[in-house]
């Protein structure tokens, strides 16, 4: 399946943290043909297992890309049928006012995120950004019907059709981190052409946005020798300092810092140079805000890497990526997997 089509399908779908099943089903359908076994664990992580060639003692490599997205959860139904809500994951309240949402209640219901109309708000208040408790979801239904259809706990996400922009760029919601899942698809597709000794566990993880929870349990169950998280990092834009961003279209970003094993990094960079895959670097001086954070400290410690796709406007509903970065990231990972052998793994604990 081509990644443009894959991404457009899964980004439009809803899969807010904790309730990823609809997205999981599409991801399963797209990736399973490249896997020898597919299973889903107790929290909902989907694991695609691809066996390596070679007898016994094959290196075990975990790939993790989270399929959950940020969203909203109904907390209370107010008089008039308006819904109060809270965020699931980190949401900038300023980006959601006046947006269209789809609410998964007893039926799927369209709604608008509204606030008090501007002309009755005093001027000083207009200078301040909205707080989530001042916002509501308006379903344009009478209260009685709302109470029959909607319950506290129901989830909503912004309604956004993915949009192709110039130069192979895609704007959509939830590219954080469905872009990473697309990288896994590319990687698995590339692996069909390569010879790899290592066993691969490509995991579409759950609940990253609320605390890297899926990666914690998935890694515990798989116990890999190497774990690579695939996530997104910030693409350049005005007002953000250069050291905090990567450039769109210049290739995936390799992370450096204490969360990352230097030999894993060394190998990623070496292969990127060898196969002329463009790449960029970023540093994180502590643990990263990705699945890599959970992977590294699971069980007895795991050699970890992090590959990120540059993405503009993170956690808005118009996140933007360059599809070429995704393809390149998939290639890099596939070559990495193909290059890993037992001596490399043994070298990871040589200090």
């Amino acid at each position: 399946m081509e990644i443009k089509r894959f991404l457009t399908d899964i980004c439009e779908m809803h899969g807010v943290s904790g309730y990823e099943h609809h997205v999981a089903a599409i991801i399963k359908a797209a990736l399973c043909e490249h896997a020898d076994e597919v299973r889903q664990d107790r929290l909902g992580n989907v694991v695609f297992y691809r066996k390596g060639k070679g007898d016994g003692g094959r290196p075990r490599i975990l790939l993790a890309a989270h399929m959950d997205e940020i969203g909203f959860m109904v907390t209370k139904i107010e008089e008039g049928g308006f819904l109060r809500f809270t965020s699931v994951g980190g949401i900038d309240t300023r980006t959601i006012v006046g947006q269209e949402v789809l609410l998964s209640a007893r039926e799927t219901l369209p709604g608008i995120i509204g606030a008090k109309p501007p002309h009755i708000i005093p001027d000083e208040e207009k200078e301040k950004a909205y707080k989530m408790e001042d916002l509501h979801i308006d379903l344009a239904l009478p209260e009685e019907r709302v109470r029959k259809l909607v319950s506290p706990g129901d989830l909503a996400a912004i309604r956004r059709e993915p949009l192709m922009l110039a130069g192979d760029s895609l704007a959509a919601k939830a590219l954080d981190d469905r872009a990473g899942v697309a990288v896994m698809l590319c990687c698995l597709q590339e692996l069909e052409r390569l010879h790899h000794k290592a066993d691969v566990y490509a995991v579409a993880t759950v609940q990253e946005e609320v605390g890297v929870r899926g990666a914690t349990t998935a890694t515990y169950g798989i116990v890999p020798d190497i774990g690579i998280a695939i996530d997104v990092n910030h693409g350049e834009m005005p007002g953000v300092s250069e050291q905090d961003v990567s450039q769109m279209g210049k290739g995936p970003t390799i992370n450096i810092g204490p969360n990352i094993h230097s030999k894993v990094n060394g190998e990623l960079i070496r292969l990127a140079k060898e196969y002329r895959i463009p790449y960029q670097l970023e540093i994180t001086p502590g643990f990263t805000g990705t699945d890599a954070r959970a992977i590294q400290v699971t069980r007895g410690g795991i050699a970890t890497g992090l590959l990120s796709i540059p993405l503009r406007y993170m956690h808005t509903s118009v996140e933007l990526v360059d599809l070429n970065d995704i393809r390149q990231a998939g290639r890099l990972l596939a070559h990495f997997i193909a290059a890993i052998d037992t001596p490399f793994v043994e070298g990871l604990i040589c200090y």
Partner: protein
Amino acid sequence: MLLKRLAAAHGVSGDESEVRDILKEEIEGTVEKIYFDPIGSMYACKGTGRKPKVMVAAHMDEVGLMVAGFEKSGLIKIEKVGGIDDRVLVSKPVTVGPNRLPGVIGAKAIHLQKINERTKVINIDNLYIDIGSRSQDETEKLVKLGDYVSFKVKIREIGDNCLSGKAFDNRAGCAILVEVLKEDYDLELTGVFTVQEEVGLRGSGAAAYNVNPDVALVIESTIASDVAGTKEAFHATKLGGGPAITLMDASFITPQKMVDLLVNTAEKLGIPYQFRRLTTASTDAGRISQTYSGILTGVVSVPCRYIHSPFSIINMDDWQNTLRLVKGALNAIAEGGLLE
């Protein structure tokens, strides 16, 4: 002196190799086995097969900085690794990268500052390392993105049997663990020099998982705030007051029977001791005690003034007494009774 060598070594969280190499050399021959885990912690084991199984941990890493970017002028942009107050950074010499290049963190001359500027903290976004190069190209030939930076200080004797310098948190603990490993105890002892404590207690959970001990002791270095302008109630610990026994910190509450063991050992051996009177800040004990189905853990610390800055101070009597307390505690654990 080993402690001086360790404190002077460059081992910011994420690249503890120089420290690890010194420690490895020191303990080789005093233990049965040395091994490592994928994150970089070093394990030293002796008395294999005896009971109970005890783990003693001391973290190797120190707080420092990381090269985050380059200016056209050749100056280097930085980010903090671990908890450092921005105010201790300005006007300090540093060591950069694996080639140990010298550099300085300068500041705008006072003559060039407006009056109201002088009262504001210079925060890290406005601090740069100058290694003396004249352009970004020149800098990038010598320094890489992600290189670690530590303070450049001489470890010196000061005052009454004290030492001044950087990284006593936690090279003081590491030096103690080296001495502890030189002796024999009637138990299975694994000393673990953990990594990345300063960036979130990252190495200790995996360490406890690998060792799976019955009991654990953590040797740390902790805040001594017995300085001018601080009321006695907020001293946390006092320099010269002896090893500090933790009752509770942000990550961990010491079980009473462990507190009792440490206090009784100190009293029996005539070792001066104090309680750590701060309940904030976390240590490796937080992760270790929560591994598997729970591990009985205790923490003893060497008091340290001006912790997490280039010039901290420890008292060598405190250091000696902490060592005596740890050895005494191990012997008390070997005698039995702690684990019912």
